[in-house]
């Protein structure tokens, strides 16, 4: 337990602390830039970008070895992966624009083909290095174990840069994400902004390769944005909530995985993010499942109360068990179904409300107001007191109502 605490408080060694901070920064950048993708409804394009990095990694390794260098230089590998991811992106754009294939087919095709090519290159490298492990498999699932200090620095610096870029480009990207036509009318170059958005996603992907691997970096781009959507309806907040969630999952995940054995960094980060997503899905205040259920229950109770009271007012028997339970619990009827004093009073009120509404719909000119009758809204919420007084005058003097008394 103390190992985990240590790791969380950055006490598990310089490298582990650097990796945790780097993963946190990466999470912020991924969450923030991913939210633009999500708003633009192109979340899965990140999946293709991520898979398309693999051939670049392989090619960069081969080129660096052929030039007589060390094939494992992280900066070189990342540069290669960025080039091939960029090629993949351009191909997707080209296929979707120039042929009649839909974008999702283009995404899938580029993803499968580039990934296949990458695997071919990995096997080429395996046979080139003849038994010596090139360590490129780490890019599939990420590995922070045995990460060099320089690598951790690359990730931390890259993460910071990506966050800064997101901050700089937030306005045009938000505009394009929400209303591309409007942005075009304002004179923005949509295609260029889209490409910039993709470049940002690509940068995050490339930086994240070493930490979470190319299969799971997609999760860091998508899950925080989707989670943040549960908590706000404002795009400005969405971006930074997503960034915050991503940062927390990156930091927590990296720290947890450094503290315990057999805890791969990438999957832990993703599972932390997924845990926050699940909590939000159920517990978020407005869009969450629990809130929706609660709203439904309240609505149901209102309908049953109103209909039950109307039945009391008309002296009709109530047979619906839920209505009976509800009215009994509120002390409006006795357990044998007879209205209490309070019940009769409420019933009279509801009946008066119905009569007033009926008169209002008959005489009032403004259909926008009288059309708000839904059998639930009290008339006082729609009409002014003097209007209601007018309805009452037309209704005539009160008549005695009562249940089965």
């Amino acid at each position, binding site marked *: 337990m103390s190992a985990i605490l240590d790791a969380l408080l950055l006490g598990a060694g310089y490298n582990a602390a650097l990796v945790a901070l780097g993963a946190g920064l990466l999470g912020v950048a991924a969450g923030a830039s991913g939210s633009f993708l999500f708003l633009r409804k192109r979340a*899965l394009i990140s999946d293709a970008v991520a898979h398309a990095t693999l051939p670049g990694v392989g090619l960069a390794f081969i080129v660096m070895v052929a030039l007589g260098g060390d094939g494992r230089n992280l900066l070189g590998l990342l540069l290669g992966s960025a080039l091939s991811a960029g090629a993949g992106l351009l191909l997707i754009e080209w296929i979707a624009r120039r042929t009649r294939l839909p974008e999702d087919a283009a995404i899938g095709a580029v993803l499968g083909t580039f990934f296949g090519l990458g695997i071919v290159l990995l096997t080429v490298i395996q046979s080139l290095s003849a038994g010596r492990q090139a360590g490129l498999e780490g890019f599939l699932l990420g590995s922070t174990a045995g990460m060099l200090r320089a690598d951790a620095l690359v990730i931390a610096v890259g993460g910071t840069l990506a966050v800064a870029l997101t901050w700089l480009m937030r306005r045009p990207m938000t505009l394009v994400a929400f209303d591309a036509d409007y942005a075009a009318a304002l004179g923005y170059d949509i295609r260029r902004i889209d490409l910039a958005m993709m470049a940002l996603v690509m940068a995050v992907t490339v930086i994240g390769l070493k930490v979470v691997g190319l299969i799971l970096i997609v999760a860091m781009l998508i899950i925080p944005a989707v989670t943040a959507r549960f908590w706000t309806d404002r795009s400005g907040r969405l971006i930074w909530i997503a960034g915050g969630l991503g940062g927390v999952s990156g930091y927590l995940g990296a720290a947890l995985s450094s503290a315990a054995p057999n805890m791969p960094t990438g*999957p832990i980060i993703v599972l932390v993010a997924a845990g926050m997503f699940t909590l939000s899905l159920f517990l978020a205040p407005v869009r969450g499942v629990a809130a929706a259920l609660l709203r439904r229950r309240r609505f149901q109770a209102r309908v049953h109360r109103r209909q039950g009271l109307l039945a009391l007012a008309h002296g009709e028997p109530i047979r619906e068990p839920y209505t009976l339970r509800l009215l009994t619990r509120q002390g409006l009827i006795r357990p044998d179904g007879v209205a209490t004093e309070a019940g009769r009073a409420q019933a009279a009120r509801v009946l008066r409300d119905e009569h007033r509404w009926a008169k209002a719909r008959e005489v009032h000119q403004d259909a926008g107001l009288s059309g708000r009758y839904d059998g639930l809204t009290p008339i006082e919420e729609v009409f002014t007191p003097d209007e209601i007084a007018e309805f009452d005058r037309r209704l005539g003097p009160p008549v005695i109502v009562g249940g089965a008394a």
Partner: protein
Amino acid sequence: MGAEFVQFSLTPILIGMFAAIACALPGNFLILRRQALIGDAISHVVLPGIVVAFLLTGTVAAIPMMIGAAAAAIVAVILIEAVRRLGRIEPGAAMGVVFTTLFAAGVLLLEQSDTSAVHLDVEHALMGNLESLIWLRATGWESLLDPAALAALPPELGRMAVVCALIVALTAIFWRWLKIATFDEGFAQALGIPAAGLGFGLVVTAAIAAVAAFDAVGSIIVIAMFICPPAAARLMTNRLEVQVLWSVAFAALSAVLGYVLAGYGPLWFGAANAVSAAGMIATVSGVILGLACLYAPHRARIGAAREDA
């Protein structure tokens, strides 16, 4: 083309072809229904499925693994639908959330459990082991008539052939329904076709194809074959019947050409070792799609041809 070919190349090529065709057939409909990426999602969740199956049964036998993978695929499809409806999230993002989470859980389970004694790892799941599915007992073409040698065929061949035949049969049986429901779901419902059930059935069929193919050839082929051959076929014709035939032809061509290039290509360049056949098959299918994008007769959007010229 002698005994050595029968021994080392015939069965992998056949398995690759069956796998490619089994994935390409449902892929046609998935692409037309704009669900192309469901194949991607399914192929990711296969990993947690087989890990859980392994943890429950303790063996790496094929049948429990396939049941586990199929169950995981169905769970994933249901979860995607649940997230989409409960959270009111667009399908692409819902898919992204579900399959990455399940994949992460699968990797974690794999790392935590003691699987060192058995051959079960992520790379195997990705790349498959097409090269190792050889027919050692064969002595030449005449072995095709030799019952003793036939009994030693790799079991993957039989399984893949059965699944491929099943999918061909299902496609043929439900052809009319699939065709109508794919192009006009409302009309299909008006005709009394259970369109929603058909859609789910299509996804389940895709999952079966993915799981069977994955067992033999790994998940790269699965992703590529769901999309590349049908997408290329889509650019060749405007008729669904013809498109399906083209997709089958492209899938078979990718499998044969990919395997041959992977197995013999490096030798032509003087290298000693073969490269990943699964990866090469996927690459070839992508190249075919690329050529189709450049030269296929029906590549352009309707009305876009003039704009491009």
